[in-house]
């Protein structure tokens, strides 16, 4: 295998089909690398040797029998540990689900198996996907492969780290307020947050149901787009799954940006403190313009309220969704003297500090006397945020901002101050609240060699435009040929 571990998913799939490599050989190599580096990175919570080798050998047998191979045949993938996998422990990085083994596969997991992908294992995350640094995992911090003392971002920090460090060519995460885009930006990879409803949430353990979407993560726009192709589509088991045709995301990568109107939010760019981020974003805009895109100024005047709105709505939904963890039907049970005490002891022992904080915030925002002032008001301001985008999309096809205000911050830097951590989500929250598709793709390195991510946002179900534009950014200033050094 030439270029291991950095060869693309396409090279693996084609090699397996042509017979120049076997799926078993590829899988063994990635399993060995994951095993060797996981003590340093902590990105995997479970490595499923047996399941991965069984899936790989099935691909090899299919090839020998001359059967058609799926679009991801033999390609290893890392799955965020809030996606249910039949027979494989699924923890949400929480003590309350520490030993939970789902009796069913998530929709996306079924789709991956059908496509011939090899599920390597389950990746670390902020507990129940609540966090922006992966420091809220009950099972240890993930490290950023570009600088081990830095946060990988969150909440899909494990999947981002695994892909960036060459432990898997592809990963899946989930995104509620930026949880695939922000870690992708911090770890120098590409991630797509699909339109709400584009990918079935069946089998994704719920955090905030009106915001959650599963998203692909990869080292190139084309690979992320190919993975998007596999997971997108209608599924009747998710009542919010959109019943409409999916696009040709991979094909869109080759369409270029001639005539594409790219909206630039000058008020956001002007307010950026970090000169490296500003310069990288300007370079990406220059790259888009050079390929024929037209830059137009747009304004998102209400996005400054997105942190307040999100941190009312998402915790409110979480407090309701997480009521199911009561120690009765699955997961941890800590017995108390009666039923109520058992609930309370179980939840207090099972949930970590950030999850408890969000449950508290959400319960407060929904409680009698505060519902109108907090929850309902947040939902009204959410309308204003959505209308900002409606107005912007009358003038442009995609809206461009940085993904994050700074490159990866240090582990421990924001851990003691939840509000500072929340404020770092300022660019990824508005499109989530509006349900819009967004992509984060690398657009350069900072002066201390940390990746910088560019976020592009499109109108509902216009993911193809994101793929076209992101590919041009990747060609102009991506990191496709630079990798974290010092991992071995």
């Amino acid at each position, binding site marked *: 295998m030439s270029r291991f571990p950095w060869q693309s998913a396409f090279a693996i799939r084609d090699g397996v089909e042509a017979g120049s490599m076997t799926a078993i050989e590829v899988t063994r190599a990635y399993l060995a690398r994951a095993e060797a580096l996981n003590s340093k990175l902590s990105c995997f919570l479970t490595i499923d040797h047996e399941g991965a080798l069984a899936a790989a050998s099935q691909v090899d047998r299919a090839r020998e029998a001359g059967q058609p191979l799926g679009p991801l045949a033999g390609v290893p993938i890392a799955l965020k540990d809030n996606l249910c996998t039949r027979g494989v422990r699924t923890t949400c990085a929480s003590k309350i689900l520490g030993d939970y083994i789902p009796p069913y596969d998530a929709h996306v997991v079924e789709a991956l198996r059908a496509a011939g992908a090899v599920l390597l294992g389950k990746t670390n995350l902020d507990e129940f996907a609540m966090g922006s640094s992966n420091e809220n995992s009950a099972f240890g911090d993930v490290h950023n492969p570009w600088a081990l003392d830095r946060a990988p971002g969150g909440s899909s920090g494990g999947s981002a780290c695994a892909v960036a460090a060459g432990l898997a060519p592809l990963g899946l995460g989930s995104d509620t307020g930026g949880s695939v885009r922000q870690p992708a930006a911090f770890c120098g990879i590409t991630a797509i947050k699909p339109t709400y409803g584009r990918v079935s949430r069946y089998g994704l353990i719920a955090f905030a149901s009106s915001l959650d979407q599963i998203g692909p993560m990869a080292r190139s726009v084309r690979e992320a787009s190919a993975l998007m192709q596999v997971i997108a589509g209608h599924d009747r088991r998710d*009542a919010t799954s959109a019943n409409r045709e999916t696009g040709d995301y991979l094909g869109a990568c080759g369409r270029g940006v001639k005539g594409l109107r790219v909206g630039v939010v000058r008020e956001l760019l002007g307010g950026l403190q970090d000169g490296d981020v500003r310069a990288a974003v300007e370079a990406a805009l220059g790259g888009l313009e050079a390929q024929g895109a037209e830059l137009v100024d747009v304004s998102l005047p209400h996005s400054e309220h997105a942190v307040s709105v999100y941190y009312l709505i998402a915790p409110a939904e979480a407090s309701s969704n997480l009521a199911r963890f009561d120690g009765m039907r699955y*997961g941890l049970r800590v017995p108390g003297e009666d039923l109520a005490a058992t609930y*309370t*002891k179980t939840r207090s022992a099972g949930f970590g500090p950030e999850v408890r*904080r969000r449950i*508290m*915030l959400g319960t407060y925002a929904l409680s009698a006397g505060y519902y109108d002032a907090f929850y309902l008001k947040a939902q009204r301001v959410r309308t204003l945020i959505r209308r900002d985008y409606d107005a912007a999309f009358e003038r442009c096809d995609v809206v461009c901002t940085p993904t994050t205000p700074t490159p990866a911050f240090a582990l421990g830097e924001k851990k003691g101050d939840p*509000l500072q951590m929340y404020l770092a989500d300022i660019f990824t929250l508005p499109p989530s609240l509006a349900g*819009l598709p967004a992509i984060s793709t690398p657009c350069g390195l900072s002066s201390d060699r940390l990746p910088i991510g560019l976020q592009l946002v499109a109108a509902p179900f216009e993911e193809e435009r994101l793929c076209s534009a992101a590919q041009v950014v990747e060609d102009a200033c991506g990191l496709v040929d630079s990798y974290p050094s010092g991992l071995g």
Partner: protein
Amino acid sequence: MAEEKITLAQVLHVAKLAMLELSDDEAAEMQKQLDAILAYMDGLDALDVSDVPPTFHSIPIDAPMRRDVVDRCADRAEILEQAPQSEAGGFAVPLVLEVDS
């Protein structure tokens, strides 16, 4: 000191509603953190949104009805395997109602 957005007594009340137990130190820390977060959220008061409809669903989707037919669900034994305690084909839970015999 500025007025508290949320008092310690409110924190303890909300914890009870949420079925969470906080130690004295945890409650004090929680009060401080929630207070800072809620103070930041005061920024929303700058907006008059009384005439703006709420967005509960960002992407309008009709709630689909499925056909009302009997379907196979997951295997009972497999589900009960994940229960902390089960007996007689069901979840075993602490006593809910006292019944005089």
